[in-house]
């Protein structure tokens, strides 16, 4: 964010300034106009950066940020999440979003900062696979609500079953980016612990592929350990019951890897470290840096390992960054990742799509720019899916569904850059394949590189796209052998149909020419069946049986499939 703040200086200087004699403006006059820009002010003017570009998306983003935070909090505390979501239509294009979890709660003094200060949080500085990562999300929703309705956000949180809950009504001071407490109280809450947030905001509710309904459903698909209870503005209730009591593998926090570190980050780390020597700084603040490696880096940078971190200059820091690149350092540990696992991914997909064939792949973890990541892919083919439509792509990052900006997403690039023709599907140029196919791509990483703060599309990093392609190809090959087998069986069935059709005709022609009787005709038919059919062996029955997939939930699948009405289709 430091970089962004620097560029903001010009914002305040836009207005006309008094002129010098020669018509130019004196610097002193300009200086009067120059001032700090509050982070809050900046984001208030650039709502699209945070996913509030239109009323429909604003409503979804608010629900999404609140739900993502709730699940993260529950998982951190090792509590199986149970989350209540209510979106209430208040009329006049205003909605109230209420999200309540059974998480660990938030200690009293943190509540105002977490909900009413932008860029505050624990996640930004940690290298850990989590849903939220920027520390912007929920406070941005609070700010958006405040800007569009003037109302404060209401937070209730309880950390201990024998203490009352803390209740706050909060505003954000957008100029100073700090919380304003409108009301503060304690409250009886029958829940043993948890957090509840209520935000009023301007929005628009629509069903369809980019709806809240779809978002929550997809969340349920990739988070089988979560129970979601959702009431939409039409007062329809959906209960997505957890299907697994097992926690996903705990994602461990790791220290940054030297290969990924940037100069500015390194400098602030040097400033903040409690370590007393450069060598100790390297070994304690980075992963995979042993004293030996640290000495090597120092030698490359021509710096004394025992020098104080605080004494490292910008020039020195640059040498250290270059030194890191020159020394061979082990790849970061990859046990910090928590994939959905291919079985659960496939199970979730079965619930959503009634197909005839499923396959899934979880790749081994790899590293981009020092960040471990892992790609998973699942495919559903045939069955009730449409044959002549482009394949449906479902994208997930750290178990969060991505509903907007599909075209700009690295996932799309990986899918369209894969040759689906060799797996028996149609594909023209660099487009999505055409056929009865659903493709699920999940990336888990300690740091998912999004194209913007609204976290809708994954950036086009070559290492990531390459790994996604490998996963798609691995799953594609399994799909290909199924598609080809099915093609063979169909051909065989067609031939058999042929045989059945013509055997009686052939027997009759021979009978008529020779003037034989019926018994001879029957003898010919019997022998022909022996000759042509029996020698062909058994054919596997590959016909689609809609009732075979017991995981499939028709009601569930319908959610988000409604016709999208008019304007809101993604640009």
């Amino acid at each position, binding site marked *: 964010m430091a970089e962004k703040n620097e560029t903001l200086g010009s914002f305040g200087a836009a207005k006309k300034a008094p002129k010098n004699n020669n018509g130019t403006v004196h610097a002193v006059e300009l200086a009067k106009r120059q001032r700090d820009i509050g982070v809050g002010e900046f984001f208030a003017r650039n709502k699209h950066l945070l996913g509030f570009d239109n009323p429909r998306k604003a409503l979804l983003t608010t629900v999404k940020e609140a739900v993502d935070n709730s699940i993260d909090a529950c998982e951190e505390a090792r509590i199986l999440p149970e989350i209540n979501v209510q979106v209430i239509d208040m009329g006049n294009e205003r909605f109230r979003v209420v999200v309540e979890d059974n998480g660990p709660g938030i200690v009293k003094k943190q509540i105002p900062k977490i909900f009413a200060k932008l860029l505050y949080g624990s996640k930004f500085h940690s290298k850990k696979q989590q849903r939220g990562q920027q520390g912007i999300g929920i406070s941005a929703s609070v700010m958006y609500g405040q800007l569009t309705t003037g109302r404060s956000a209401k937070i209730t949180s309880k950390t201990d079953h024998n203490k009352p809950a803390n209740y706050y009504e909060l505003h954000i001071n957008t100029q100073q980016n700090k919380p304003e407490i409108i009301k503060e109280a304690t409250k009886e809450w029958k829940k043993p612990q948890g957090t509840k947030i209520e935000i009023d905001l301007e929005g628009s509710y629509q069903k369809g592929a980019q709806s809240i309904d779809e978002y929550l459903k997809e969340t349920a698909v990739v988070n089988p350990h979560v129970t979601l209870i959702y009431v939409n503005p039409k007062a329809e209730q959906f209960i997505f019951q957890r299907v697994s009591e097992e926690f996903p593998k705990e994602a461990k926090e790791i220290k940054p890897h030297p290969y990924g570190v940037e100069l500015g980050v390194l400098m602030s780390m040097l400033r903040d470290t409690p370590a007393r020597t450069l060598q100790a700084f390297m070994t304690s603040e980075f992963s995979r840096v042993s004293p030996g490696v640290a000495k090597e880096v120092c030698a490359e940078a021509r710096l004394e390992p025992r020098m104080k971190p605080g004494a490292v200059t910008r020039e020195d820091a640059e040498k250290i960054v270059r030194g890191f690149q020159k020394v061979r350092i082990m790849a970061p540990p990859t046990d910090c990742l928590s994939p959905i696992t291919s079985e659960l991914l496939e199970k979730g997909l079965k619930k959503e799509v009634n197909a005839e064939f499923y396959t899934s792949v979880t790749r081994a973890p790899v590293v981009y720019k020092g960040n471990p990541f892992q790609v998973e892919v699942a495919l559903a083919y045939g069955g009730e899916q449409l044959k002549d439509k482009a394949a449906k792509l479902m994208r997930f990052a750290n178990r969060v569904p991505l509903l907007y900006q599909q075209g700009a997403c690295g996932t799309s690039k990986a899918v369209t850059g894969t040759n689906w023709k060799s797996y028996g599907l149609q594909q023209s140029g660099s487009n999505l394949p055409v056929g009865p196919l659903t493709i699920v791509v999940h990336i888990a990483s300690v740091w998912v590189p999004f194209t913007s703060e609204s976290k809708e599309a994954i950036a086009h990093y070559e290492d990531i796209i390459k790994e996604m392609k490998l996963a798609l190809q691995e799953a594609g090959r399994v799909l290909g052998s199924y598609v080809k087998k099915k093609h063979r069986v169909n051909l065989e069935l067609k*031939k*058999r149909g*042929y*045989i059945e*059709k*013509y*055997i009686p*005709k*052939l027997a009759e*022609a*021979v009978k*008529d*020419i*020779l003037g*034989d009787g019926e018994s*001879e005709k029957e*003898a*010919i038919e019997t*022998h*022909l069946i*022996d*000759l*042509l059919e029996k020698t*062909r062996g058994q054919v596997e029955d590959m016909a689609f049986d809609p009732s075979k997939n017991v995981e499939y939930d028709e009601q569930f699948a319908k959610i988000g499939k409604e016709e999208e009405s008019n304007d809101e289709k993604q640009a």
Partner: protein
Amino acid sequence: MTKSKRKQDTVKKITGVAKHVKDSILKDYAPALKTPLRSLSNVTFSEKAGYFQLKGGEKERRLNASSIKAFTQTLLMMNESKNVVESDDMMTKREAYYVSKNWGEAKFSEQPESDAVMDDIEAMLRIQREQLGFIPEEDGGAVAGKLTIIDTDPDTGKEIKVDCWKMGSGAYNIPADVEGFSFDTKAKFVLAIETAGMFQRLVKHKYYEKANCVLVSLKGVPSRATRRFIRKLSDEKKLPVFVFTDGDFYGHFNIYRTLKVGSGNAAHINEFFCVPNARFIGVTPQDIIDFKLPSHPLKEVDIKRGKDALKNDPFVKHHKAWQKAIQLQLKLGKRAEQQALATHGLNFVMTDYLPKKLKDQKLWLP
């Protein structure tokens, strides 16, 4: 061969195939039908035989899942043929196609399919389509001259004599099946003519009396019946056959060569349809020069046809004289029609051209 003998022969061949199929099936062995390959590349020409002979390339259709449809259709068609032959009836190719509509699933959806099956049966059994009861739609040639044709009344079986000089200004139309014909004539030769216009001129002026010959109008590429008619007449009465076409490659090869030695596509029946003792009297490329005939430039297709004949036609390859004629014509770059002779007077063809050409063997082409 008498008509009833031919009938028996046809039925015997059809039942023979059906028997082979049945026996194979009952022995649990997939039966196969063999037909000769029909193309110019599968024929040779020998002076001795006098026609294009098959080289022996065969295609075998063994009964299996992919061939069962065509296999069934072939046998169904053979059954129809047997019924038609046994009841002394016949059907055109088009009718055969419609008859197949009663075969349920095995029916043909387009006539070319049924035509192909018919050609296969003909080639497989080595008997003419007409003998199988299938007749072409196309018009046969026409005959005029000092000739009596002895035909049989289809109902009574009695002899009918047709005198081909008693047709007034018209001519006798050759029917589809000429197999049962015999002839009575004192004529000295047969003159086969490409165009109907030239034929009419010669009939109108009773050229056949003057030259004591039988005139046959080929009407373009001669139909099978026309070819068979000329062959039978020539064989039985030991008459030479002279052919008179336009002076272009179409007349020389598509018409004359097909009449004399047959074609690649119908090589399996050339034996019966060729007229080996036919000779070409005109219009030759040399005639264009000798008679100063008005001409047209060769078109691109003509040139291609000529070069193709030089390269691929076994008949041309056998005859130096024809190679020279083609080369001369290509060099002239011209073609001339029969009617071009009219430039020297309407009856010049009868008074000068034909007598001169018929008299001098050196002016013919083999």
